[in-house]
C-alpha cells in the first residue's frame, strides 16, 4: 500500500515536471491568441530557445546567461511573427509554420557548426543547469506517514523554473482579468476596431502580447535543455509546443483551464512512461501509444463541440486593416 502511494506520488511529481514547459507555452499562447494572433510557432520558439539556452550555458557555464539568451531569441522570433502577421498582414498560420520549420533546420545547422556533435550541445554539468531546490525539512517532514511523502516527493525538489511556470499562470490570470492592458488585450482579439476608435494602437497592443509570449516560450525552452534535461538534443521539443496549443484550446483560452489541461496532459505523459512495458490485469500490455495520443484526441473532440464548447477570440487570424 505504502509502495503504491509512493508510486502515485512519484507520478504526480513527474506530472509537474512534464507539465512545466506546457504551462509556460500555453500561457504564451493565451497572450498571443487573446490578442488575435494565431500562434502555432510555440513549438519553433521553444526549440530555438532550448538550443540557445544550452549553447550559451555551455559556453559561459551559466544557466542564467542561457536563460537570457533563450528569452532573447524567442522574443526575436515573436517579433518576426509580428512583422509578418501584424505589420505586413501576412497569413499567421503560414508565418508560424515557417518559424517552426526554420527552427528545426537552424538549431541543427548551428549546433553542428558550433559543437560538431551532430546537432547536440555538450552535456551540461550540474552547475550549468537549474538545479532542484530542496525545501527546508524535506527529509524530516518526509518521515510523517502518508502526508509526509507528499511534501518530500511532490512539493520539494523542483527547480526554480517549475515555480516560475506556476507564477506565470497567476501572472497571466492577473494581467488578463485585472489590468488595463489585459482588458485592451482581450478587446483587441475580439473587436480591434473598438480599441482603435478608443485611440489605442492595435499594432502596439498585439506586438506587446507577442513579446510577452516570446518571453514565456523562451523560459519553456530553457527549462527543457538546462533544467529538465542537461543539454540540447535535436528536435527535443518533440511536439510539446503543439500539445501546449491543444491544452490552451482545451482550457478554452483561459489561464486556469489551460493550467488544468496542461496538468492533465502532463499526467498522461507521466503515466505512459511509468506504464511502459507493464502488464495490466485483463488488458494486457499497457496501451501506452493510446495514452500518449489522448491529448490530441480529446482536443479534437472538444473542438468539435461534442463535450462543451471552445470558442476562440473572434478576431483571431484576421490582420487588422485600419479604416480611413
Amino acid at each position: 500500500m505504502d509502495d503504491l502511494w509512493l508510486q502515485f506520488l512519484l507520478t504526480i511529481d513527474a506530472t509537474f515536471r512534464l507539465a512545466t514547459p506546457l504551462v509556460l507555452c500555453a500561457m504564451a499562447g493565451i497572450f498571443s491568441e487573446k490578442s488575435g494572433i494565431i500562434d502555432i510557432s510555440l513549438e519553433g520558439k521553444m526549440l530555438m530557445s532550448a538550443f540557445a539556452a544550452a549553447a550559451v550555458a555551455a559556453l559561459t557555464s551559466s544557466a542564467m546567461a542561457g536563460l537570457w539568451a533563450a528569452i532573447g531569441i524567442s522574443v526575436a522570433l515573436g517579433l518576426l511573427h509580428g512583422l509578418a502577421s501584424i505589420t505586413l498582414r501576412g497569413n499567421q498560420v503560414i508565418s508560424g509554420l515557417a518559424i517552426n520549420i526554420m527552427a528545426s533546420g537552424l538549431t541543427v545547422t548551428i549546433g553542428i557548426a558550433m559543437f560538431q556533435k551532430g546537432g547536440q550541445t555538450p552535456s551540461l554539468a550540474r552547475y550549468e543547469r537549474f538545479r532542484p531546490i530542496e525545501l527546508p525539512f524535506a527529509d524530516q517532514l518526509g518521515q510523517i506517514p502518508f502526508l509526509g511523502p507528499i511534501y518530500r516527493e511532490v512539493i520539494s525538489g523542483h527547480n526554480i523554473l517549475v515555480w516560475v511556470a506556476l507564477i506565470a499562470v497567476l501572472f497571466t490570470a492577473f494581467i488578463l482579468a485585472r489590468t488595463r492592458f489585459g482588458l485592451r488585450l482581450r478587446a483587441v482579439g475580439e473587436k480591434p476596431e473598438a480599441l482603435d476608435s478608443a485611440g489605442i494602437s492595435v499594432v502596439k497592443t498585439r506586438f506587446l502580447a507577442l513579446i510577452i509570449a516570446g518571453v514565456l516560450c523562451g523560459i519553456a525552452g530553457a527549462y527543457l535543455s538546462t533544467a529538465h534535461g542537461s543539454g540540447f538534443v535535436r528536435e527535443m521539443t518533440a511536439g510539446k509546443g503543439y500539445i501546449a496549443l491543444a491544452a490552451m484550446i482545451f482550457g478554452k483560452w483561459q489561464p486556469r483551464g489551460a493550467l488544468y489541461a496542461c496538468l492533465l496532459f502532463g499526467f498522461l505523459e507521466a503515466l505512459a512512461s511509468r506504464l511502459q512495458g507493464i502488464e495490466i490485469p485483463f488488458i494486457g500490455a499497457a496501451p501506452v501509444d493510446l495514452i500518449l495520443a489522448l491529448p490530441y484526441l480529446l482536443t479534437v473532440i472538444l473542438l468539435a463541440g461534442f463535450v462543451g464548447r471552445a470558442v476562440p477570440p473572434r478576431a483571431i487570424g484576421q490582420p487588422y486593416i485600419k479604416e480611413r
Partner: protein
Amino acid sequence: MSAPQDLPRWADIGLIPLLNVFAALLVSGIVVAIIGENPFDAMMVMLKGAFIYKGSLGYTLYYATNFIFTGLAVAVAFHALLFNIGGEGQAYLGGLGAGIVCLLFDSMLPALIMVPLAILASAGFGAIWGAIPGYLQAKRGSHIVITTIMFNFLAASIMVWLLAGSLKAPGQMSPETRSFTRSAELPFIHDIANSIGLEMARSPLNLSFVIALLACVGVWVLIWRSRLGYAIRTTGHSAGAAEYAGIPVSRVIIITMAISGGLAGMMAINEILGVQHRTILGFTSGYGFTGIAVALMGRNHPIGIVLASLLFGALYQGGAELDFEFSTINREMVLLIQGLIILFSGGLAYMFNRPLARLLGLWLNPGKNIPTTGAENG
C-alpha cells in the same frame, strides 16, 4: 494568397516566386557564411549533387514526385480557402492503406490489379483522414488548421501502434511490415529504360512520377474545367456568395478536403509501392509540410507546383550532398531554406509586392505618378 496590389499577373506569377527563392537563398547564404564556409561553394555542391552526378537527376525527380502530390493536396484545399496542414498525416495513412491491401492480396493478385488497388487504397485512406477534419470544419465549426495538426499526431500514433504491433512482420525487431511481393511494386524508371535499350543510372525514380504528372492534369481539369472545381473556387472566394448561389458549401468543404487528403495519401505510392516495398515507420519525413512551401511557391497551379517540386527535389537531393562535402554544414540547411521560402512567400508575402509594383509601374509607365492604393495608408 493573391497580391492586393496592382501587380501585373506575369510579375505576380513569375517574378515574385523567384524573388522569394532568391531572398531565402540569400539569408541561408549569410548563415553559411557566418558558419565559416563559402556559400557559393555550398551552392555548387548542391547543384552538382542535384543534377550533374550520375543518377542524381533521378533522385531529384524522385523527391519531386513526393512534393507534387503533397503540393497538389495543399493547393486544392487552398482553392476553397482551406488550409490543410495535415498532408503529413494523410500521406502517412495513405501508406497504411497501401500496406494493408498489399499484405492481404499481394500473393494472389497480378500486378495489373494489385498496383491500382494499392493506389486506390492509399488515396482512400488519405481521403478519409482529410475528410474528417473537413467534416468537423463544415458541420461542427472546428478550425481546420488545429484539427489537421492534431490529426497529424493521431496518424503518427496509429502508425506506431500498428507497425510495432499487429502489422509488424513476425520475427523481426524493426517496426515495419514484411516486404511485399513483386506484384505490388511500381517499376523503376531505370529498369524500364534499360529494358528498351536506353542506358540509365540507378535511382529510386519510379512510375509514380508519371502518375504524379497525371494527377497534375487531373487537378487542373478539376479546378478550372469542372463544375465541382467552380464550386470549390466560389467557396474559396466567398462562402456566403456560394451559399447564396445554391452551392452546398458544407458538402464542398468535405469533398475538397477528401480530394486534398487523397492526393496527399498518394504520396505513399512513391515511397511504399515505388521504393520501400513495405510500409515503414516515418516514411513521410516531413514531405507533407514541404507541400505547403511547394503550393505557396507554385501559386496553387499545377504547372507552378511541378516547377516548385523540381526546385525542392533539387534542394533535398543537393542538400544530401552537403553532408559528404562539408563537415560543418549538412542537409538540415535545406530545412532552413524551406522555412525561409515559406516565410517569404507566405508570411511575408506582401513585402515584395508593394515595392515591386511601384518599380514596375515606374518602368512600364515612365513619368506617370503612381497612385497609392487603399491598403497602403492603412
